């Protein structure tokens, strides 16, 4: 997995609440057996019309935001389906961080597995960041994971919380499975004990 340390990029404002994973990547693109290539269909039904023409009003189609690396979104981002195709599509488009007041649980976890940093901020901070994002391409937002800060284009800095283990994995680009495999002894011991206590499992 790619490391996430510092990011300076364009932030796109997406002030809708309850953006679900069906919106992020509709089901017709779930029929792939690969992880790559989904960026072109990110937010497909909002981004294109039926004929595949771009909707000029959608934020990521506007010239200022075509290279966006950060999304600032409304409450409860990523709700609904567990499809990891949602973070795959975001990552493939180039999005490396999403900022909202809240995220749905499964989406939140899926982000960390794909080098994307989801940042939870209180409403008043999201409001400030949303305004900053609305400034367009000239306004670059900075995110420093080590320091746990987001800095607006005006230099205003806000701190955020992140789970220490998840932070460690992102900073170092670590693969969870490899880490867990090192604990195989503990899993063996647990499994033996559990199958004695609950043999029907």
């Amino acid at each position, binding site marked *: 997995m790619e490391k996430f340390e510092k990011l300076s990029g364009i932030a796109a404002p997406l002030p809708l*609440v309850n953006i679900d994973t069906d919106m992020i990547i509709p*089901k017709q693109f779930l029929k792939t057996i690969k992880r790559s290539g989904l960026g072109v269909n990110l937010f497909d039904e909002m981004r294109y019309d*039926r004929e595949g023409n771009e909707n000029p009003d959608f934020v990521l189609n506007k010239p200022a935001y075509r290279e966006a690396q950060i999304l600032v979104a409304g409450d409860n981002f990523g709700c*609904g389906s567990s499809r990891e195709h949602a973070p795959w599509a975001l990552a493939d488009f180039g999005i490396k961080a999403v900022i909202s007041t809240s995220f749905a*649980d499964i989406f939140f976890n899926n982000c960390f597995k794909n080098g994307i940093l989801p940042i939870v901020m209180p409403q008043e901070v999201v409001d400030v960041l949303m305004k900053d994002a609305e400034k367009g391409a000239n306004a670059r937002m900075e995110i420093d994971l080590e320091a746990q800060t987001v800095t607006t284009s005006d230099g205003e800095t806000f701190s955020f919380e992140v789970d220490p283990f998840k932070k460690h994995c992102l900073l170092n680009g670590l693969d969870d499975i490899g880490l867990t495999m090192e604990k195989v002894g503990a899993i063996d011991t647990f499994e033996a004990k559990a199958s004695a206590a609950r*043999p*029907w499992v």
Partner: protein
Amino acid sequence: MSPKTLYDKIWDAHVVQEDEDGTCLLYIDRHLVHEVTSPQAFEGLRMAGRGVRAPDKTIAVPDHNVPTTEGREDPAQMTEDSRIQVAALDKNAKEFGIHYYPVDDVRQGIVHIVGPEQGWTLPGMTVVCGDSHTATHGAFGALAHGIGTSEVEHVLATQTLIQKKSKNMKVEITGKLRPGVTAKDITLSVIGKTGTAGGTGYVIEYCGEAIRDLSMEGRMTVCNMAIEGGARAGLIAPDEKTFEYIKGRPHAPKGAQWEQAMEWWKTLYSDDDAHWDKVVTIKGEDIAPVVTWGTSPEDVLPITDVVPDPESFSGGKVDAARRALDYMGLTPGQKLTDIKVDAVFIGSCTNGRIEDLRAVADVVKGKHVAEGVRAMIVPGSGLVRAQAEEEGLAEIFQEAGFEWRLAGCSMCLAMNPDQLAPEERCASTSNRNFEGRQGYKGRTHLMSPAMAAAAAVTGHLTDVRELA
């Protein structure tokens, strides 16, 4: 010993290792797998030269993509990409030696219906699947939740998940339900009250008389939609009904192991003085038959109500409601019962079980689907279909003008050919009314099977209590 919730008890019994910061390695007892969220995980195993750690605890079934029309064994019925996905599951199941129910097996069906039906899901277990509606299995007092594909690969390789414990939330439904009110109305009403993020960070335990009174099928409907309330999982403590349902199922314990299991299962309840981080109480008698009017499962109102005015909301919800009404083609103040439907979908992991089909038959017997309405019933599994045929329900449906389909997820997420056309309006027993969920620009109203059946025969959203 300090008092514990049911969630605490199951959690504690599955912690392999806990780090100082509270990050745990949690052992997984059952891993359910379907064709859409697993191919990349199996591919990841192959690339890393890893195997499946516990193939005997891993169960696969294709459900999302499969057509529900007769003759579907013919691969020509699937689009090429669907066919490739189903073929990949076929190959992976054989190569890694996991339990598998292929499309032509009578036990095939929606993964969350097959698991309990075959006795794979048992009280006190940890159950995961690359699907958010894994919450369904919580009805058995199992800790069950959806995971992403990276986690699917993690569980395949290690039979564990890296997790932090959620908080405990109690949702109590007191007293009795009124006539015409069902498990679906309970679960939708809870989401209507708490919102789609109300359960974020929590595991919900549903309790109270109205929950105890539900059948296992009803309890599965309630837990199924815990995810729509944002919760990681929904739970209901096992009781005699649970044990009765499980007993004799193909993969349920037998003989001495049954007795041993029962001993533990009977300890699976929340202690009286357990700590709850959040409590929501709803009186059963206050719950009405409900429908959704918008594009979020929290957009719930009693069927007797009218389409709301977006200005009546606050914050980001004002814009969201405006957008939803525009998408749904509705006007504030319009009576919900005046909304005409073009399609009716009965099925899904929320409401595709035998009891749901019986409820539909009760409403439609001797009646006919309204003119211009296309209505389909998609049983949740091949065995549900067979039972409905044996009970004579299929005949009632067909005489009433419903299409009687083969098992699968079907129009709940419309990955197979069962889809709404743009602006087509559907009364649906599924779980999500998101934009485009049932087809591009399709309009979904969520409701109970009885309410969907009532809409089918009248051609508009209908209060099932008024239907003679």
